[in-house]
């Protein structure tokens, strides 16, 4: 197996100093009509560039744009779709973070590309790393939406409609030269999917992926009971949250992996820094069981936005050290 380091998804938008507070300040001023849209966009771009720079400073092999423009993982994808209205705040899983709940009001259609501009910006500003764009998956989006249209009767039907528009999005992203496209599905832990149906859903989703590698990522739940099922889905990389799964590493040591793996060793929900030697030791123990041509990406258990910025940077640095120590 080959080891690479990867950023999971999002990155803290603000830090401690006034300078690091500029995005919060810009939104604040924009709400009071004291600065223009153009000025806000400029700050968003600066902060995105800084997020990419931090990842490159830590020599990550796979870089995201830090999802700086995202308010939350649900409404950011849903807000630009036809047939969707964005509603009130709900708690995002067991975190202290909230998302706006979508309401499905009619047939779901993609008016235009959802993430094309963000992806282009990421590509333009990434010097060395491979690029990764994150999409929240159709299953999770559907489970967390409210249906108030006769167009769909069940969240399954909504998921199918969403898979259609996200497949178009994946095609656009792949065509634009993005290397990795990550589909986040923490929703598997809210409601267990019907696996046969889900396999069809993912086939549709990945049907036009071109050269891009498709990641399926779960977090905020124990993935061990789902591991065998996930291995059967038509995706290239399985992303898993190691912190919630006490038996997962033993399971991988036993069963191996037919796919590339992204292992969330570092806790994205807690500031405590993991022990470098222990993580490297665990990684070495997987070596024989993961096929030689497969890649293991070492990453955090979830995105970094649940941490303060200074701690997030420390986690990125630790990913670099792990990669170093492993290859030595």
């Amino acid at each position: 197996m080959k080891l690479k380091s990867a950023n999971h998804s999002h990155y803290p938008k603000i830090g401690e100093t006034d300078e690091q507070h500029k995005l919060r300040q810009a939104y604040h001023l924009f709400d009071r009509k004291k600065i223009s849209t153009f000025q806000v966009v400029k700050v968003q771009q600066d902060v995105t560039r800084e997020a990419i720079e931090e990842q490159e400073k830590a020599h990550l092999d796979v870089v995201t744009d830090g999802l700086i423009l995202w308010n939350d993982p649900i409404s950011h994808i849903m807000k630009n779709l036809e047939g969707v209205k964005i509603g009130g705040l709900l708690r995002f899983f067991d975190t202290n973070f909230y998302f706006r709940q979508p309401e499905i009001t009619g047939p779901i259609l993609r008016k235009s590309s959802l993430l094309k501009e963000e992806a282009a910006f990421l590509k333009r500003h990434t010097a060395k790393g491979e690029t990764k764009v994150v999409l929240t998956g159709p299953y999770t989006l559907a489970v967390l939406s409210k249906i108030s249209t006769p167009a769909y009767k069940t969240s399954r039907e909504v998921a199918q409609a969403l898979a259609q528009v996200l497949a178009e999005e994946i095609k656009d992203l792949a065509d634009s030269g993005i290397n990795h496209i990550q589909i986040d599905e923490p929703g598997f832990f809210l409601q267990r999917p019907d696996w046969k149906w889900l396999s069809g859903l993912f086939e549709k989703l990945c049907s036009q992926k071109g050269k891009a590698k498709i990641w399926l990522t779960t977090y905020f739940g124990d993935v061990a009971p789902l591991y065998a099922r996930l291995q059967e889905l038509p995706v290239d990389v399985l992303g898993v949250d190691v912190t919630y799964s006490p038996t997962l590493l033993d399971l991988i040591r036993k069963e191996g992996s037919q796919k590339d793996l992204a292992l969330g060793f570092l806790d994205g929900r807690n500031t405590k820094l993991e022990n470098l030697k222990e993580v490297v030791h665990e990684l070495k123990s997987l070596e024989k069981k993961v096929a030689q041509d497969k890649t293991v990406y070492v990453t955090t258990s979830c995105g970094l936005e649940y941490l303060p910025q200074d701690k997030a940077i420390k986690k990125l640095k630790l990913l670099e050290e792990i990669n170093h120590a492993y290859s030595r």
Partner: protein
Amino acid sequence: MHTQDKLKNLGVELPLFPLTSVGSFPKPEYIKKARARFVKGELTRKELETLEEKATREWIEFQENIGIDVLVDGEMYRGDMVAYFAEELKGFSQSSFVRSYGNRYYRKPVITAPVVWEKPMTVDWWKKAQAMTQKPMKGMLTGPYTIMDWSFNEYYKDREATCMALAQVIRKEVEALISAGAKLIQIDEPACSVRPSELPLVIQSMNVVTEGLPAYFFTHICYGDFEKIYPEMTEIPVENFDLEMSNSENDLLNCFKKRSFPKDLTAGIVDVHTHEIEAESTLKARLEQILDVIPARQLWVDPDCGLKTRTVEEAKKKLEVIATVVKSLRKSYSN
């Protein structure tokens, strides 16, 4: 012992449908300005405190004037309900900003060493506030489970160990409040419904906090998925559950219909997230619905949650309409 007997033994006499509040009231403009100046070093702690006492006195007078039965100090001197305790306890270091939604951020504390209770954290304010009124003043604390869930932990082995260590610390504060004379103490656990599988930990830690102590305990839980934790949540060892009934009224009443509510209930009957002041008829109807499933002698009344997010004017109006409706309801019950 029945909850009402506990009150009687404590020498607390209250009318039918006692009126109270969840905890926080909005800070008047002069407190907001004073806090900003204090941060900049333009105001001494003593000067800030004098203003906070003035604001506390104003809120106490207001509560007395409209006939609230069990008062709160309004928390003029507190910011965040977890950060306040994290700053007072040994073992925490302050963390930087974490986003909660949109453009809103909060400072999430970090536990970096054993948590130790060195001195009372809320007793001085409780004494000051109690001295301003003849009515009983509630002691107000945040529960161990919520402090654990809303903090980072770099010291303890896991969530359980963190929570149980915090329980010991909060018990010391409860004991200090009781020694100072507090008879009614509220321990907030708003995080309690987030991970239903950890409800046993909430119960176990609250038991450490309240077991064998001579006080009437409340816990306030809000904006949770009650269906997932009812009726098990009623095993949390307190006498009174303070719950938001205006925001999730139907869910809760359905729960209570299926399995009757075994303890005292403080029903929140006004929404704290709307500017609009509820009509008397709305609140009356809400209370009647609740009284269909909760015996009258078990029922207390208050707003859904802390009122600190409203303006002073809105908060006062919401409290006034609650008081008006409850007083007329009492009349119809005494007839």
